[in-house]
């Protein structure tokens, strides 16, 4: 056991040294997320209208209003029975506008900081007002309510997604390319000729990547908090555990992809096939609200979904460790499954 740890430590140390001394990769790992965040803060402070809006209709007349709204161009309307649930989704940028038909005149709500709130108002409410009155000057058919002060600003909503995305790319590509390169140039063959076991090697790669990712994530997190004033409303411990196990599961996924692969092109293709769906369905950029139920179910098989969803719950909604425990358990299970399969499939040499 002691020797096994010594072998693990030897690999862990060597890989860390390789990464830390590769200054170009190291610099890029730190700089890229800041570029991304700056880009987004710039983009979402502009009045540039995005191109589609999601509307929820609640109340007794929801069905008839939904039919009228759904006929409008560039608008997707859904019925949500529970008005509180609809408001909550609006606050979390899963919706762009909520129309409550329980009151007369109907009340609509938008988030002042949402990137598509203004667009939704123009596309739906103004159009409906004009249609109701035959394009003459409209009376106040709807009552407007703003979520200002209670909503989660879009950048705050996006921040956990950006961190998750950065962890995902740093995890899967970092570890898989290194393993494939080692296999191609014979380093793995040399290591395999020693008493080193696949599990020792793979867990050292996982730990090394984890150490580097946690370090870079901590730097990016702190820097972003200072620059943009993000808050963690819930449990810090839960957030750290989510980042830790989220990264572990994604690194293990990268290791699995590289367990037998001999070419960077192949492993790159396999990982692109995995990461791009995650980018779209794990709600990195935008909510999946309104998308078909099967897509939302498929999203649950991806570790990134659990990482981002859990982190948003903690950072934006003040969730506790218990509140996100199921996300954590899923991430731990995925890590162990991916790592076990990788150890069983692993090859030191080319075929």
């Amino acid at each position: 056991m002691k020797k096994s740890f010594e072998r693990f430590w030897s690999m862990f140390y060597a890989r860390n040294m390789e990464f830390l001394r590769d200054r170009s990769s190291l610099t890029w790992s730190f700089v890229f997320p800041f570029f991304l965040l700056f880009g987004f803060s710039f983009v979402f402070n502009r009045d540039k209208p995005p191109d589609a809006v999601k509307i929820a209709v609640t109340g007794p007349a929801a069905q008839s209003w939904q039919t009228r709204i759904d006929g409008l161009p560039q608008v997707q309307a859904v019925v949500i029975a529970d008005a509180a649930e609809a408001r909550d989704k609006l606050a979390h940028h899963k919706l762009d506008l909520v129309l409550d038909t329980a009151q007369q005149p109907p009340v609509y709500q938008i988030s002042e900081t949402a990137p598509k709130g203004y667009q939704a108002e123009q596309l739906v409410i103004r159009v409906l007002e004009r249609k109701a009155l035959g394009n003459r000057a409209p009376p106040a058919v709807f009552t407007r309510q703003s979520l200002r002060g209670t909503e989660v600003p879009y950048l705050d909503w996006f921040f956990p997604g950006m961190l998750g995305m950065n962890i995902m790319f740093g995890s899967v590509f970092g570890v898989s390319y290194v393993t494939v390169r080692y296999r191609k140039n014979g380093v793995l063959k040399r290591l395999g000729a020693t008493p080193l076991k696949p599990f020792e090697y793979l867990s050292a790669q996982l730990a090394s990547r984890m150490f580097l990712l946690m370090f870079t994530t901590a730097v990016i997190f702190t820097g972003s908090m200072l620059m943009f004033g993000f808050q963690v409303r819930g449990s810090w411990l839960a957030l750290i555990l989510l980042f830790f196990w989220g990264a572990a599961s994604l690194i293990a996924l990268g290791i699995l992809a590289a367990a037998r692969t001999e070419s960077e092109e192949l492993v790159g293709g396999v990982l692109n096939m995995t990461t791009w769906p995650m980018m779209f369905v794990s709600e990195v950029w935008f909510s999946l609200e309104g998308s078909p139920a099967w897509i939302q179910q498929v999203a649950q098989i991806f570790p990134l979904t659990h990482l981002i969803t859990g982190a948003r719950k903690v950072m934006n909604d003040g969730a506790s460790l218990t509140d996100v425990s199921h996300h954590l358990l899923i991430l731990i299970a995925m890590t162990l499954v991916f790592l076990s399969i990788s150890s069983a499939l692993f090859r030191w040499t080319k075929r």
Partner: protein
Amino acid sequence: MSSILEVRDLVKQYPGLRAVDGVSFSIDAGVCFGLLGPNGAGKTTTIEMIENTLDLTSGEVFYKGQPRGQKFREEVGIQFQSTQLLQYLTVEETLKTFHRLYTRQASLQQIIETCQLSDILKRDNRKISGGQKQRLLLALALLNEPELIFLDEPTTGMDPQARRNLWDIVQAIKNLGKTVILTTHYMDEAQILCDQISVMDKGKILTSGTPKELIQRYCPHVTIQLPLSLPAETLQNLPWTIETTPGGHELHAKDAREVLKVLMERDLDLSDISIHSPNLEDVFLVLTGRSLRE
């Protein structure tokens, strides 16, 4: 002497190619055993199957009379033909990284001295010469104080001085009583370093023995070349076969001393005479009709 390694009927079959075809041999402890053959003969495939880094199609390998197990990994040292090193690490860090992987550990200082690495310990792996890299790879193969050491084409691509330097190190390792298995396509390397040789071609072992035995068995004659300026009639009635080639008159005999004695009795000018003793290259030529480098 007891056998440390026994190989029985090794076969490696690839689609459309039988790379190794029924190779068998046994190596005694403390011996330097050479697999000599041209590129593509199947030497590396054979040695990698024995090292357990390549799956064998069929056959058996016994280490100290037993099938190879975890003990084999702990007790053998391997220098592969082509291996990259961990990047951004120094020579010293590389040695320490691999050293920690073994339960049985040799003295690092002794290995550094044996492999002449003292001057480059702090140097980045990426900034060492080919000869230095080979010495480092050899050092990695010695870290666990191995009883059996595999050296696969250890001097390929090295300049003559670096090759001789590495031969000295291998001699030093031999002097420690280690068993060495060496593959090479350099006839001089095999002749200088190896106690036992198996000549290999097209996946098969053609013959085995000590270098001296092989030469005596397949090329028992020395070739004495006399200049063309010697009149042909002066060479008449000699008891050896004489061929006249563009390079001179070639005379083949078992004993060069006897030839020289007769020629001196005839009072011939022997200042431009050359004597070629047969070597393993000639053995391979006799066995296959081809040169080792073809």
